[in-house]
């Protein structure tokens, strides 16, 4: 025991010496503040860094430098986790998936910002301008509590990517109508108003073999109707499955109800199982790679960009690549709508879905000096002006005045669907045990996806595991 804590003590106290040696960046002099930030390497963070360098003028008059460590996505968690847990204390800002909050708050790494919000009315106003669903998902731990931690970096939602040339083709429209007695969705609004049944029909309808015709053209390769994530890695089936579970009236283990809420009886409730079954039912209309359990968000996106599927449900954050003619064979044939939902008895569609995207957070070893500059920076970043610029450069914003502005929809073809989806966003657990919950669940879902066990067994196994684990952790009584 003494060894570990002692070493961590060492680490804290030697910050200054270490900084001098490494030429590192955690410490700064009075008028020369450096903020070190760990971010995944992708356009939204590149844009943020660019804007900062080009446009940020600190009100304090200090010289503020944003030192950004761009880490490739696949290794981002590994790098950040190792840095935090080893006591490296290298970063002041960290871009963090929302589900990581609990683990790193409990570890003492993420700084609670309630005091900063309370002390600064402007800051408070900024925080309140965030869409509540996003605010809860990105900022609170425990989920939906009053404890605040993060600010939106890139809010992300699932939307439907469609191919206009296929969906709006007259022949296909007519044939679809004849077969299912419903209109084949073609415009963004029609897609936003699409339920899973229509989505399923599209899947069935557009399964074509090589040599058959599609929209009047002879196919030189197999074609598939639909795709969504159903992969074993990270959370690449959980997001889909949660969406289905919620829409069917089931639920995941709800941490806002801890410690009286249960996993058993909830996660494997008939509604949740029905959601799972629905999720599994659609897989048979998807490209064959789904059978290998590796159809993650990137694989389904790639299939869509290569023109192998008619529709794909995927993150908004992956949209840029499909617009670029270099990386997309369908760049001029795109149409976007909200992700499909479940039509209720009242005819209304339930679009509840799992939120994606990332907040960024402050770390506990950030000095008051740095914190002051950090808050100023966050306020600037979340200001409507910057958020508009960010959105125009391909980012997304959860600031009300920004996404509600009519010009927001003009920035990118999916922005309308994005704004409409915000109300429906929910998040998974923020508890420190999230990775154990996630890993076991992903393993179980993978077994179901690859046809090794049925939905009920899967959900029973997940529920039992979660019940045991959370009981041990004291989160379930």
């Amino acid at each position: 025991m003494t060894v570990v804590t002692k070493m961590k003590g060492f680490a804290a106290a030697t910050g200054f010496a270490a900084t001098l040696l490494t030429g590192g960046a955690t410490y700064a002099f009075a008028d020369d503040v450096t903020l070190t930030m760990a971010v995944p390497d992708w356009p939204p963070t590149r844009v943020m860094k660019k804007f900062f360098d080009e446009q940020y003028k600190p009100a304090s008059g200090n010289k503020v430098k944003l030192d950004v460590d761009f880490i490739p996505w696949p290794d981002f968690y590994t790098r950040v986790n190792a840095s935090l847990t080893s006591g490296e204390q290298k970063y002041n800002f960290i871009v963090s998936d929302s589900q990581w909050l609990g683990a790193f708050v409990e570890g003492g790494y993420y700084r609670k910002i309630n005091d900063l919000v309370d002390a600064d009315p402007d800051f408070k106003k900024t925080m309140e301008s965030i869409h509540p669903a996003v605010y809860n998902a990105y900022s609170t731990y425990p989920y939906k509590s009053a404890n605040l931690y993060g600010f939106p970096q890139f809010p992300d939602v699932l939307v439907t990517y469609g191919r206009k040339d296929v969906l709006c083709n007259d022949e296909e429209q007519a044939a679809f109508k004849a077969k299912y007695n419903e209109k084949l969705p073609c415009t963004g609004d029609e897609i936003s108003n699409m339920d899973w049944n229509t989505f399923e029909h599209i899947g069935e309808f557009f399964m074509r073999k090589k040599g058959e015709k599609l929209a009047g053209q002879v196919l030189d390769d197999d074609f598939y109707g639909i795709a969504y994530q159903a992969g074993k890695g990270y959370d690449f089936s959980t997001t889909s499955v949660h969406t289905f579970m919620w829409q069917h009236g089931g639920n995941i283990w709800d941490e806002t109800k801890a410690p009286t809420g249960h996993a058993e009886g909830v996660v494997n409730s008939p509604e949740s199982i029905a959601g799972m079954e629905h999720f599994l039912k659609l897989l048979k209309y998807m490209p064959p790679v789904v059978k290998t359990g590796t159809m993650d968000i990137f694989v389904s996106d790639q299939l869509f960009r290569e023109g192998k599927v008619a529709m794909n449900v995927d993150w908004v954050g992956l949209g840029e690549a499909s617009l670029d003619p270099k990386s997309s064979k369908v760049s001029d044939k795109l149409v976007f709508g909200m992700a499909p939902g479940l039509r209720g008895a009242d005819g209304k569609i339930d679009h509840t879905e799992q939120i994606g995207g990332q907040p960024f957070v402050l770390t506990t070893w950030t000095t008051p000096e740095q914190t002051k500059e950090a808050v100023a920076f966050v306020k600037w970043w979340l200001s409507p002006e910057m958020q508009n610029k960010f959105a125009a450069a391909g980012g997304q914003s959860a600031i009300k005045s920004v996404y509600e502005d009519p010009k927001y929809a003009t920035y990118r073809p999916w922005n309308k669907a994005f704004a409409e989806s915000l109300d429906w966003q929910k998040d998974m657990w923020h508890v420190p045990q999230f990775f154990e919950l996630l890993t076991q669940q992903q393993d179980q879902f993978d077994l179901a996806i690859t046809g090794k066990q049925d939905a009920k067994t899967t959900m029973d196994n997940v529920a039992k595991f979660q019940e045991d684990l959370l009981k041990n952790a004291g989160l379930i009584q």
Partner: protein
Amino acid sequence: MRLSPDNWKLAILVGLVVSVLAAIALPPHVSFWIVGAMAALVAAAFVVNAYRRKYYGGLLVAPAIAVLFVMNIFPLLWSLGLSFFAYQSNQQSIRFIGLANYTKVLTNDIMAPANWGALVNTAMFVVLTVTAQMIVGFLLAMLFAKQFPLRKYLLILVLTPMMLSVVASGVFFSYYYDPTFGILSYVINAITGGQFILMDSKAGAVTGIVFADAWMWSPFVMLLVLAGLVSVPKYLYEAAAIDRVSKWRQFWTITFPYIRGLMMLALLFRTIEAFKLADLVILLTKGGNDTMTISYHLIRIANEQNKTSEGAAISYLMLFMVIVLTNLYLYIANRRSQGD
């Protein structure tokens, strides 16, 4: 006690006293360097002592031991120590629990099945990949054993796979195996007209991983075996030709004794590496289709879930197995060579 630069006992005593005093009295970032200086003092005393006594062995080995100790052995001992505590790297609390981690990873209802499953899979991968590498590496080496025109240029082609980074080769193998874009499915579909998916069953996924791994690392085995082959004096083969010894007998009586040592070395190193198989699995299946290996499992436990001490316990159990296995190899190798 005599005061002289080679008196290491005195140096240790002084070092200990000063270190303890510094650790108590001074802030850590100062005492750290003082403790370091004391360690250097002790080391210097050892070196001077060894030099004066003409104890060159110790002198020569010292730098290597020092580097290994700081960079490898100290972290290893640290992890070993942690395996007796209840400790998660993302939490501040730590408490001694003896062997509980070991019993937990072996018997706990929630944890143990996954551990055992990963272990069984790892054993399977070790056997399959190492066997495949040994066979392919050996056959390649046989091809290259004789001198022939352009050998140098063809050999480098075969050596290239092991120079690739695992990320690139793993990602590209996932492409080769992809049912929509990949070459494998394209060729098989063109022949059978069906829809071939390699990675949709355990057998297929294991084949895919083993193939990629064997492809990458057979050249390593080849190089060692080839080195053995070219070291066989040519006249032995000439004598065998004149004595009309069959190829089969030639191999076992002449060739094999020369390559046995190197094959054992290859086997040793490849086995050690095979136990660490994780990257390819992550890139190709994410552990799906029951291909989870103990090393990947360990990454999840120790890194993703931050269960540091349980991870340490698993890795020490694994280390124990590797040590037993490698010692078995070495024992057999020594016994055989003494029998000669």
